């Protein structure tokens, strides 16, 4: 997933740096819910996916916003966990990795590209 810092409007970059850890936690939580890990609830996943849907695009991450919207629709539907849920979880996990790499302290652009290549 192609993510870079220029996606975030300059005016919002300080806020993004401050809030990114919480956003990452939320993405991780939705992934856990989609994978039906113990201690997770569909209601919680739905609420987090809904917030991420509205939030990620506002920070400039439109593809991430769409993925969260898909997760929201899945968690709201009558469909029981299936392959589609796993696909959505995998895509959100990839988003999480890309955003985590972007916001990792002390990395320059070359380091980030290397990390993303290694993890894929």
């Amino acid at each position, binding site marked *: 997933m192609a993510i870079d810092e220029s996606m975030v409007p300059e*005016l919002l970059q300080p806020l993004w740096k401050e809030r990114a850890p919480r956003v990452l936690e939320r993405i991780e939580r939705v992934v856990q819910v989609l994978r039906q890990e113990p201690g997770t609830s569909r209601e919680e996943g739905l609420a987090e996916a809904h*917030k991420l849907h509205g*939030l990620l695009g*506002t920070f400039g991450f439109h593809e991430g*916003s769409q993925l969260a919207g898909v997760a929201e629709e899945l968690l709201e539907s009558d469909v029981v966990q299936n392959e589609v849920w796993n696909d959505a979880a995998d895509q959100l996990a990839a988003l999480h990795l890309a955003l985590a790499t972007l916001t990792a302290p002390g990395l320059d652009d070359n380091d980030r590209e290397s990390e993303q290549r290694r993890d894929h």
Partner: protein
Amino acid sequence: MTTTEKVSSDVIINKVLLVDDEDDIRFVAEISLRDVGGLETFVASSGPEGLQSAEENLPDLIVLDMMMPGMDGMETLRQLRSNPATDHIPVIFMTARAQVHEITSYIEAGALAVITKPFDPMSLHEQVKQAAASLN
């Protein structure tokens, strides 16, 4: 910085109240309305808090999140309309749920306009001002 924006011959937008339970959305929207748009911006994190702020600050317009825990946007709008002090204040709903039938129901309930999430922080203030101009 606060400025008075004259958006049409009769509609002046100066003070805006933003009501949203989500911290990050409030922070971004506040930056957009206040720093980019030059509007005096009040914020509230729930329907009840929004009702109180509306009565105290008498904003020219309210930007109201639809999905909030407890009192949602629709109920907040109903209560704003039932209070003579706030019944005249235009309300714009902000929501990620904006299918055609949903937008229609929001407008029928008395919303001036609907702004969809995610919104563009660089142009949110323009959307708000354009909606206010439509009051003419």
